[in-house]
């Protein structure tokens, strides 16, 4: 895969931080939690925590203990419901996904499914499973478990089930033999393989045994794990902590320095997280605190803060169906008035200016696209060409929605306000709670003129940064707040989905990007870097493209005696 657009500086840093390589594709979990909770590090109010409660019990006792500090609660432990990063963290360590992401190529790769094939021109996908995988109760993982787990997701209709709901009927899941399972989609479905990284397999026998009122064991899985993952749940204290210990017969095996137990406690206060890390009480933080916090942690002798590019876009979608942003010249004026440099350097403090909707490091990014720069003269030119005068614009009132409570979001608003101020445009900043924001995104009339959005891919495919943003069938979600598409864009994106060949699919996506950018439906601002705090004595951490995959504790080891203090 091409790695050309990774700057050398970053690559070095990346390597230095312990990642072996970075390539394209990959994705991170849901956007929603990230913007509300993820960035909540800078505002404690947005999430839950109990700093201390969970640390008792098995946590500190002997053994090699991995302590993760999460900024938000674990809402559910059912892998069929997981959407956000803490839920992903739990699933990743307690269960196994059908397909995983290759740490080196960041492409979908074999995991529980050791091989696969397509039939009917990409409409049916057939997976062959490994034969050495056992659940934590010792029973082997079979095709029945896979079929049950997927049926379960489709029936529960929670979590990432939306990846398949429109394309796959539960009756079209077939178990061909103990190790083979086939999914027959309604149409050729190119991204299917990528989507299965979000498909975790449960022990069908145990779950079925514990079904209540047709809940597919949902209640049972809140307090128990029934997976084949590296760790088995010991204790979950709602809102406070989870504790798990190693499954000895895990199919990937164990090394000397692997962690015997892993626990995750919830702390939302940035200051507390920093203190905890500084005192050598924690092994790893999440990536959603304020820029300042990582800078500070980096200065601690016992903590390192790797900074790597990630597959994320920060932008302001411009509502193209609402005056005055329905005028392309107004949109261009807004885009040229924005101070990208300050946004990246002063506010985000790293990463690069975005070039189009698809993150630059993602496979399928159109390398021909050029990042925007502030140019007030051009902005004025476009404004002069626009159908609306400045007075008219001010009369209508431009609204910029930011997510309430976080410093970064607020500063982005202020920066935008300052830029537009130069054009004589008054901008109203409207901080909204996330729920309100998503609610407003359901119709073009209620969607704001612009909205701060962090958009992380959900799977290792550019599909989510194109199809989900600019295909009319995707409209109504917070991701598609531009309400912008053309027949040409739509057709190109549909072709991409149907194509089973990776390379031609990526080409289609690149084509679509060029078409999209012409319409200036967004102010594409940045591809922010990925930063987390790690105790110096933890090794083996890698950035793995999909949210929470990089917190696979099994892949990490302890060097030295205990945590670095």
């Amino acid at each position, binding site marked *: 895969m091409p790695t050309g657009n990774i700057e050398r500086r970053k690559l070095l840093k990346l390597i230095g931080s312990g990642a072996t390589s970075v390539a394209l594709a990959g994705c991170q979990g*849901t*956007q*929603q*939690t990230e913007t*509300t909770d993820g960035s909540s590090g800078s505002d*404690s*109010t*947005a*999430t*839950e*925590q*109990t*700093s*201390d*409660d969970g*640390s*008792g*019990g098995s946590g*500190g006792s002997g053994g090699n203990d991995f302590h993760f500090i999460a900024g938000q*609660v674990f*809402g*559910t432990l059912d892998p069929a*419901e997981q*959407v*956000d990063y803490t839920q992903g963290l739990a699933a990743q360590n307690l269960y196994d996904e059908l397909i995983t992401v290759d740490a080196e190529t960041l492409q979908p790769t074999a995991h529980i499914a050791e091989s696969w094939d397509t039939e009917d021109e990409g409409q049916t996908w057939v997976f062959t499973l490994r034969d050495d995988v056992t659940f934590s109760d010792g029973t082997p993982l079979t095709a029945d478990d896979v079929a049950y787990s997927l049926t379960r997701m489709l029936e529960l*209709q*929670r*979590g*990432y089930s*939306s*990846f398949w*709901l*429109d394309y796959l009927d539960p009756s079209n899941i077939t178990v061909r033999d103990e190790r083979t399972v086939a999914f027959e989609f309604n149409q050729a479905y190119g991204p299917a393989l990528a989507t299965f990284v979000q498909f975790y397999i449960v022990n069908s026998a145990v779950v079925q045994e514990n079904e209540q009122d047709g809940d597919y064991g949902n209640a049972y899985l809140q307090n128990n794990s029934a997976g084949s993952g590296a760790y088995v749940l010991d204790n979950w204290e*709602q*809102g*406070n902590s989870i504790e798990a210990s190693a499954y000895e017969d895990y199919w990937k095996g164990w090394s000397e320095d692997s962690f015997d137990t892993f626990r995750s406690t919830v*702390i*939302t*206060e940035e*200051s*507390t997280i920093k*203190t*905890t890390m500084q*005192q050598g*009480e924690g092994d790893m933080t999440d990536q959603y605190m304020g820029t300042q916090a990582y800078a500070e942690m980096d200065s601690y002798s016992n903590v390192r803060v790797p900074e790597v590019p990630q597959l994320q876009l920060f932008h302001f979608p411009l509502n193209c169906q609402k005056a005055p942003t329905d005028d392309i010249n107004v949109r261009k004026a807004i885009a040229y008035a924005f101070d990208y440099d300050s946004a990246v350097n002063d506010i985000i403090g790293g990463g690069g200016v975005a070039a189009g909707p698809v993150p630059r490091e993602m496979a399928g990014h159109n390398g021909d696209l050029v990042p925007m720069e502030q140019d007030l003269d051009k902005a004025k030119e476009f404004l002069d060409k626009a159908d609306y005068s400045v007075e008219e614009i001010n009369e209508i009132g431009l609204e910029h929605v930011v997510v*309430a*409570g976080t410093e970064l979001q607020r500063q982005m608003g202020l920066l935008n306000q300052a830029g537009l101020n130069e054009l004589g445009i008054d901008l109203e900043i409207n901080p909204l*709670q*996330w*729920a*309100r*924001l*998503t*609610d407003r995104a*359901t119709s073009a009339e209620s969607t704001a003129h612009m909205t701060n959005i962090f958009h992380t891919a*959900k799977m290792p495919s550019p599909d989510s940064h194109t199809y*989900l943003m600019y295909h009319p069938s995707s409209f109504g*979600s*917070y*991701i598609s707040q531009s309400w912008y598409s053309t027949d040409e864009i739509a057709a190109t994106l549909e072709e991409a989905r149907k194509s089973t060949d990776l390379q031609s699919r990526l080409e289609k996506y690149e084509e679509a990007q060029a078409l999209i950018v012409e319409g200036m439906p967004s102010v594409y601002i940045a591809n922010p870097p990925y930063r987390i705090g790690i105790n110096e004595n933890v090794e083996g951490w890698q950035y793995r493209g999909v949210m929470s995959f990089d917190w696979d504790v099994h892949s990490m080891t302890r060097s030295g005696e205990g945590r670095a203090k």
Partner: protein
Amino acid sequence: MSYVDYLVRRAIHSVPVIFGLSVLIFLISRVIPGDPVRLALGPEATDQQVAALRAEMGLDQPLPMQYVDWLVGVVQGDWGMSLRTNNNVFSDIVARLPATLELTVVTLFCAVLLAIPFGVVAGTNKDRWQDHLSRITALFGVSMPRFWVAIVLQIVFVVSLGLLPLSGRLSDGVAPPPAVTRLYLVDSLIAGQFGTFVDAATHLLLPTVALGLATLAQVMRLIRSDMIDEQRKDYVLAARAYGLPNTLIEYKYMLQNAFTSSLTVVGLAFGFLLGNAFLVEIVFAWPGMARYGVQAILYQDFNAIVGVTIVVGIGFVTANFVVDLLYGYLDPRVRLEEG
């Protein structure tokens, strides 16, 4: 007999208050414009998913029906699911209530305990320096935003001096004492874990100060003015005329009356204290119900909002009931007069 009557009547009076409170809060929470269902399902959710969950949560019902369903659930201990924690609100609150109780009760207790001698001294030295000092201190005490005091305390005692822990209920690595009351101060003593007790107490210190300063001031001023009122009472003059020692008159004769009339306001002060706990818990990352409430509100997690508000309402009503109870105990007029 009539004391019991009185108490039962007071208790019965609070029922419509709680009921009305639930209606009020229920209505407020349901007009919250965000879409809780989308929030729970994540961004990729399809319309079917949304509709299904909506039906499951009963949100497609008319409001009165939703209320009835909710009320029935409440009575059965099912307070609905929190959209944020995905857990039963009741168990969420039960898990967090002890922390809030520990904070508020300890604060109230300390505030009242300190307010009594200060109030008596100020009241019996009206217009002397003791009184002026107490007045100025009190006015400062009630004028500073409690959340800001909390931050300033953190800057001074944690950041600059490094004397006290920044936040939370216990230091990392200190295991909570075996749960009996879930109040760490009490539990650690029961278990004989003195170290844990000290740790819990040091964590409690700053939040208590931040939260209690204004309450202390409020109650102190109240006791002062009630003491001044008492001084004008005939029975005080009588007691002096009988040659009783001043200390006895002040602390036995006057204080009991003064405190009785201050009591009703202590009940109200508890309400304010609870209200401010919402801000102080946030600052100190106190893992209590108030913090849960703020987050519920910011997250528009309406079952949790309703739950927390009801519990706070019940707490307030209970506090006032306890006040009534004490009032009746301390003032025989309430107990003995019929009607």
